C-alpha cells in the first residue's frame, strides 16, 4: 500500500459506508436471521403441526437424531448423490472445458450448446429425466428394444433410482464446472506451456506439471460449491422418485421435509435442518477462508 492522500476525514467516509450497509444489515436480520432463530427455537421444542406444543423444550430431538435409522439411511442417500454427482459434474465439466479451450477460433456456439442444460429449471430437468427413465416412454428404451435389449427400469431399485438422480443432476450442473474451469484455463498464459516445451517437457508433462497445478483453486471452488448445493437436493427427488422406492432416495434435506410437512413433526424436522445447517456453516467457513486467501 502506498501512502494515500487523506481526502477529508476518513471517519466521515467510514460513517458513509456504514450508512450504505445498514439497510442490508437490517434486511438480512429480518429475512434471514429471524427465520434461522425460529428454526433453532423449534428444534429444541416439541412443536407438532396438528397437536401444537406443550412448551416442552429440551434436547430430545437431538437425542432422537443419533439413533434414527431413517436419518442414517438419508445420510447414505445424500452421500451417494453428493459424491457421484459432484464427481461426474467436475470430470465432465473439466473434459469439456479442456476440449473447448483447444478449439481454435473460440467456437462460441459450442459454448452455448454446452451451457443450455444449466439454463433449464430443476423441476423441468427432473421431469425431462423422469420421461427418459420411464420405460414405456423413453426413446432410449425404444432404441435398445430394436436390438432386442430390454433396458431395466432404473427407478424401481435403490441404486438405479440414485443413478437416475445423479444423471439428471449431472446433466444440469456440469456447465457450471465447465464455466469455472474454462475461465481458469483461459487465464493461464500460453507462455508457460511454451517455456515448459523449451525445457523439454512433453505435452502430457506440461499439462500435468504446469496447467493442472494452476487449475487447483478452480477445481476446489467448483467442488465445494457443487458439494454444498448437493446437500440441498429437493426437486429432483420430489419429482423423480418421491424418495422411493421405499425410502431409499430420501436424502437428508428431503427427509427433513417429510418429517415436517408429511409427518407434521415440525420440531424434529427443524432439528434435522439445524444439523444440516451446521454442516453448511463449517464448509462455508472454509470456502470463505479459501476465497479470502486467493483474493488477497
Amino acid at each position, binding site marked *: 500500500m502506498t501512502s*494515500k492522500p487523506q*481526502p477529508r476525514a476518513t471517519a466521515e*467516509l*467510514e460513517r*458513509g*459506508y*456504514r450508512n*450504505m*450497509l445498514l439497510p*442490508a444489515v437490517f*434486511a*438480512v436480520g429480518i*429475512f*434471514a436471521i429471524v*427465520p434461522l432463530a425460529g*428454526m433453532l427455537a*423449534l428444534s429444541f421444542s416439541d412443536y407438532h403441526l396438528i397437536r401444537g406444543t406443550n412448551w416442552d423444550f429440551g434436547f430430545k430431538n437431538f437425542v432422537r437424531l443419533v439413533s434414527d435409522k431413517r436419518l442414517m439411511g438419508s445420510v447414505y442417500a445424500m452421500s451417494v448423490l453428493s459424491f457421484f454427482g459432484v464427481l461426474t459434474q467436475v470430470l*465432465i465439466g473439466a473434459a*469439456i472445458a479442456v*476440449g473447448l479451450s*483447444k478449439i481454435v477460433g473460440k467456437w462460441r456456439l459450442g459454448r*452455448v*450448446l454446452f451451457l443450455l*442444460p444449466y*439454463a*433449464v*429449471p430443476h*423441476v*423441468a430437468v427432473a*421431469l425431462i429425466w423422469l420421461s*427418459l427413465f420411464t420405460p*414405456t416412454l423413453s*426413446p432410449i428404451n*425404444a432404441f435398445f*428394444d*430394436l436390438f432386442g435389449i430390454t433396458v431395466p427400469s432404473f427407478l424401481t431399485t435403490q441404486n438405479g433410482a440414485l443413478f437416475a438422480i445423479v444423471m439428471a443432476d449431472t446433466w444440469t450442473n*456440469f456447465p457450471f464446472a465447465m464455466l*469455472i474451469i474454462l*475461465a481458469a484455463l483461459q487465464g493461464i498464459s500460453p507462455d508457460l506451456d511454451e517455456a515448459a516445451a523449451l525445457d523439454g517437457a512433453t505435452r502430457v508433462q506440461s499439462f500435468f506439471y504446469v496447467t493442472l497445478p494452476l487449475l487447483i*483453486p*478452480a477445481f476446489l*471452488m467448483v467442488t465445494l460449491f457443487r458439494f454444498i448445493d448437493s446437500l*440441498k437436493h*429437493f*426437486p429432483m427427488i420430489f*419429482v423423480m422418485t418421491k424418495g422411493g422406492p421405499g425410502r431409499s432416495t430420501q436424502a437428508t*434435506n428431503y427427509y427433513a*421435509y417429510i418429517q415436517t410437512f408429511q409427518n407434521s413433526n*415440525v420440531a424434529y*424436522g*427443524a432439528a434435522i*435442518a439445524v444439523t*444440516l445447517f451446521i454442516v453448511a*456453516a463449517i*464448509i462455508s467457513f472454509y*470456502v*470463505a*477462508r479459501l*476465497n479470502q486467501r486467493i*483474493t488477497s
Partner: protein
Amino acid sequence: MIDNTSSFRVKKAFGVTIMLVLLFFAALPTVWVLIMSFREQAEIFEPIWESPLAVTLDNYRGIARSDFPKALLNSFICAGSSTLLAMIVGVPAGFALAKSRLSGKFYASWLLLLLRMAPPVGFVIPLFLLYVNAGLIDTYFGLIVAYMTLTLPLIVWSMWNSFAQVPDELIEAAIMDGATLGKAFLQVALPAARPGAVAAAILGFLIVWNDFFYALIITRSSTVTAPVAVMNFISYDSVDWGSIAVASIALTLPILPLMVIANRYIVQSLSGAVKG
C-alpha cells in the same frame, strides 16, 4: 508446435470423439423434450420412428388455455420484485463492503456464503408457521419477502466482488474533487461496475425463477409459480407428458437469453477467487 504424426492424429480423433459423445449427452434431453412437445397425445408412447408424422400443436394450445400462463406471470412478478428490492438494498451494501475499512469483513463474507448455502428447509419451516399465523400463505407479499432470503445474500456477495474490481483510486479521485460518497458511488463506482450489476440482477432473477421448494410450501392456487404449477400435469393415475414438455420449454425459454448474457459473469460473481 503442430506435428502431424499419426499418434497425434489418433489422440485428436479420440478427443473429438469424446467431445461428440458429451455433446450428445448434453443435447439429447433438449432434443427429446422438443420432440415430445410436438407429439400427438395418442402416439406419445410409440417409438418416434413408428409415427414420425404424428405432429401437432395441440400441446401448445392446451398450455395456452390452461392456468399455466398465469403461473408464469406469477414467477415473473416474484422474481422481478424480489430481485429489484434486493438490488436496491444490496448494491450499496456491496459497495460499502468492498471499499470501506470496516472490520469483520471476513465474518460478513462467511455469513453471506452461509446464507446462500444453508439448506432451504431451515428457512421454510419457521416461515411457514409464521405465514400460517399471519395470513401470508399464498400472497405475493409473503412470497416476495421469502425470496429475499435467496436474492439478497447472492446480490450483496456478487456486488462485493464486482466493486472490489473497481480501482480504489477512481473513488478516491472523485472524493478529492469534492464529490460526496453517495455521488462517488452513483456516478463513478456504479457505472464502472455495471456489467457486474447486470449479472447480479440476472442471477437473482434466475434463482427465484428456478425455485421450487419455497413456492411448494408457501403458495396455494392463486400465487403458485410455474415450477410448482407444472406438477398439475401429473395426476394420480396419469401423466400428461405433452403438456409437461411444453411447460418445461416455457419455463426455460424466458431465461435462456439471460443465461447467455450472464454466463461469462457467472464465474466472477459466484467466486471472486477464480477470475473469468
